[in-house]
């Protein structure tokens, strides 16, 4: 198997590359990134002749296609803005494709390439990270066991028990630009059988998760699960698909503050005669701050997170509730959380092995073999558990 990772040197890419390098049957791995030097450095750091690094401008369909030609699958770990162009490059080069999500709106655009992928005999799996990704697949587990599906509530929550050694670092768990959008963009949820736009960070709800996570406060944000699950579960009558995210109130305050100052803006602004995009400058400043503050500091990460799905429906005329959790902690060898980075590696390998039978553009809940996927997650120290609630009285 030859697999390329676009954005391989970014926030998510490196652990995906690592997972690929430890998977059987992988002959070649390409780390491609807009930061070409970083990609080459990362590739070299593995000391593995199978792994190469290269510059890529994923917006340039022609160049990207030339780069990935010969690879069996492409994992897009970069920011969702490059999803469409990367998919088109895959069509040109004849590669399977998967990504970490299109923040709802781009996901809908990507689904329109279904016929192109079908004609090309290729598969694309959209949003196969942890959320979206594992969340969708957990929901599918419940869907399979119900006659009717009423509501699907997916969420992600966690607790950070890392001893920061008194260092106060503003360390977003994922791209600060995506976070800014989640804070600024309206959330789109599927409620009462139709899509509704809600204010970002509305719908505050306390949800109880397995220990040690416990009770967490969660909010609506724009996300991709509601973009696909309503259609996927339509035949069982689903009326509601909602996504919420747990956010530490302090982090919310800080990110909201940055957004209100104007740092979330994608509009270029002139500063001393130069045109800059505030959110990109902020991302650079935040990244530098993390690097400077944690330089030479040994931290033993201790974070527990869950991807959670609560599905309510009917089986044999009776109401049944499924509560699923995929719980992940810091990987014992890798020393970091890997819940988002591992699923695309698993999916890419499945795509190359032909385990996704139908060509086309798919959401994870439509095509991923659940048992196989859960077992693969378990190999990376992530366990999936299910609780079923049903009323036993007649």
């Amino acid at each position, binding site marked *: 198997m030859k697999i390329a990772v676009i954005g391989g040197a970014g926030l998510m890419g490196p652990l995906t590359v690592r997972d690929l390098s430890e998977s059987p049957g992988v002959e070649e791995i390409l780390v491609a990134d807009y930061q070409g030097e970083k990609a080459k450095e990362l590739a070299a750091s593995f000391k593995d002749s199978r792994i190469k690094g290269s510059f890529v401008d994923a917006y340039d369909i022609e160049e990207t296609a030339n780069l990935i030609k010969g690879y069996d699958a492409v994992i897009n770990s970069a920011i969702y803005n490059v999803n469409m162009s990367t998919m088109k490059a895959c069509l040109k080069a004849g590669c399977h494709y998967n990504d970490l999500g299109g923040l709802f709106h781009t996901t809908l655009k990507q689904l329109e390439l279904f016929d192109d992928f079908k004609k090309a005999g290729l598969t694309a799996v959209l949003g196969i990270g942890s959320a979206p990704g594992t969340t969708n697949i957990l929901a599918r587990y419940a869907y399979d066991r119900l006659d009717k599906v009423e509501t699907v509530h997916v969420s992600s929550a966690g607790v950070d028990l890392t001893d920061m050694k008194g260092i106060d670092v*503003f360390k977003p768990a994922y791209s600060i630009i995506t976070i800014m959008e989640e804070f600024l963009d309206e959330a789109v949820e599927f409620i009462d059988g139709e899509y509704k736009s809600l204010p970002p960070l509305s719908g505050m709800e306390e949800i109880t998760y397995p220990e040690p996570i416990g009770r967490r406060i969660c909010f609506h944000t724009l996300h991709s699960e509601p973009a696909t699950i309503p259609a996927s579960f339509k035949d069982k009558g689903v009326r509601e698909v909602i996504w919420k995210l747990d956010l530490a109130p302090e982090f919310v305050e800080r990110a909201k503050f940055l957004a209100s100052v104007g740092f979330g803006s994608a509009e270029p*602004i002139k500063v001393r005669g130069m045109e800059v995009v505030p959110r990109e*400058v902020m991302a650079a400043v935040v990244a530098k701050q993390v690097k400077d503050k944690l330089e030479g500091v040994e931290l033993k990460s201790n974070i527990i997170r869950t991807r959670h799905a609560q599905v309510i429906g009917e089986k044999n005329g009776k109401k049944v509730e499924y509560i699923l959790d995929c719980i992940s902690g810091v990987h014992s060898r890798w020393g970091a959380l890997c819940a988002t980075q591992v699923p695309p590696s698993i999916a890419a390998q499945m795509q190359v092995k032909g385990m996704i039978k139908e060509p086309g553009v798919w959401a994870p809940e439509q095509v991923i073999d659940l048992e196989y996927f859960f077992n693969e997650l378990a190999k990376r120290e992530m366990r999936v558990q299910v609780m079923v609630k049903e009323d036993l009285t007649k």
Partner: protein
Amino acid sequence: MKIVIAGGAGAMAWPAAIYLLEQPDVTEILLIDLSESALKERVNKLGGDRRLKYQALDLMADIKATAKAFEGYDVIYNCAFMTAGTATTKAALEAGVSYLDLGGFKKDEQFALHDEFKNKGLLAILGMGTAPGMSSIMAAYGVQQLDKPESIEIKDACVDMVPDTEHSHPLYWGYAIEGIIEEFVMEHPYFVDGEMTTAPARSHPEWIDFRPPAGKVMVATTPHTENVSLPQTFKALGLKHASWKIGFDVDFEEKMTFLRELGLFKTEPVEVDGVKVSPRALMLKLLHNQSPETKKAPDFRGHMIVVVKGEQGGQKVEYTITEYASADLTAKMRERGVFSSYRTGIYGGIAAMMVARGQIEKRGVLYPEACVPPELFLKEAVKAGIEVDVSRKG
């Protein structure tokens, strides 16, 4: 008296002009600033008083032109931001008019003109606002009561009484944000045990009880003129310690600290997409670019407490001098729509009048504590609506 207010359309000039227009012996005030439209608006806001004249002029562009504008006036009261200090001082010298300003970082350039000012029989008072300015004069008053001064501690509070949740703006500042940023960043001189040492910005914090409504405020050191001027003026008399500390409301302190820790106060450029941009420049641009306030305007309150300790008649005594804007003065300013810190404009105005009226004997370029008669100044402050309290502990 004919007075020039440089930076006449700015925040500090507004209360300065209000005070000066109340003086019966003021016959003309010339407002100088960059924008003619801003000046026109300011004249309107001041009720279109006949004594007001205005001229759009870049103080720094051509010192000769600035000097020409200054000719014939009794005093130049520079309320513009610090960068214009040296140029404006030179222009005053050339025009043969005495000068005062609200402070600056390039005072050595101004002090270099000391002999020239002296020879021409002129006076330049550097840093004659609230602090430096009134603070220094309160300290001088305390020192005057003693045979031998030992320590001078100045504490100030500048607190927005309106909670952040009641503003649409993400951040409000009581005085120039550019200056406050420097106060949060710069290491600075700190006079202790008779020696000049250095302290980091916002160090040596302590909680001080200020008069309501400011209440309990955490004050900490910042770079400020008094750290240097008080030892310079009073070391020969035996002064061993001097400290300047200021406190803000908790929201402001937290937000500024967060922005600083994030690296947004750095002037060292970050590179984004091949473009180098100074984080601080972008941040200031965004902060100054906010859409109009939709909720509540800020309400900055606070006052200074100066504690002077030393020997008097062989005994150890302690003088506490406080200044506090009376309710009437506050109401008047609010009624006029002045929301930022206004005492500064008034204190400079009092000194401007004392210079114009010939009530200050000394000549050359001097700190306020080295030339302004303390008791007379404090009496004028009381007339202007400031409550001045002096207590002695022996």
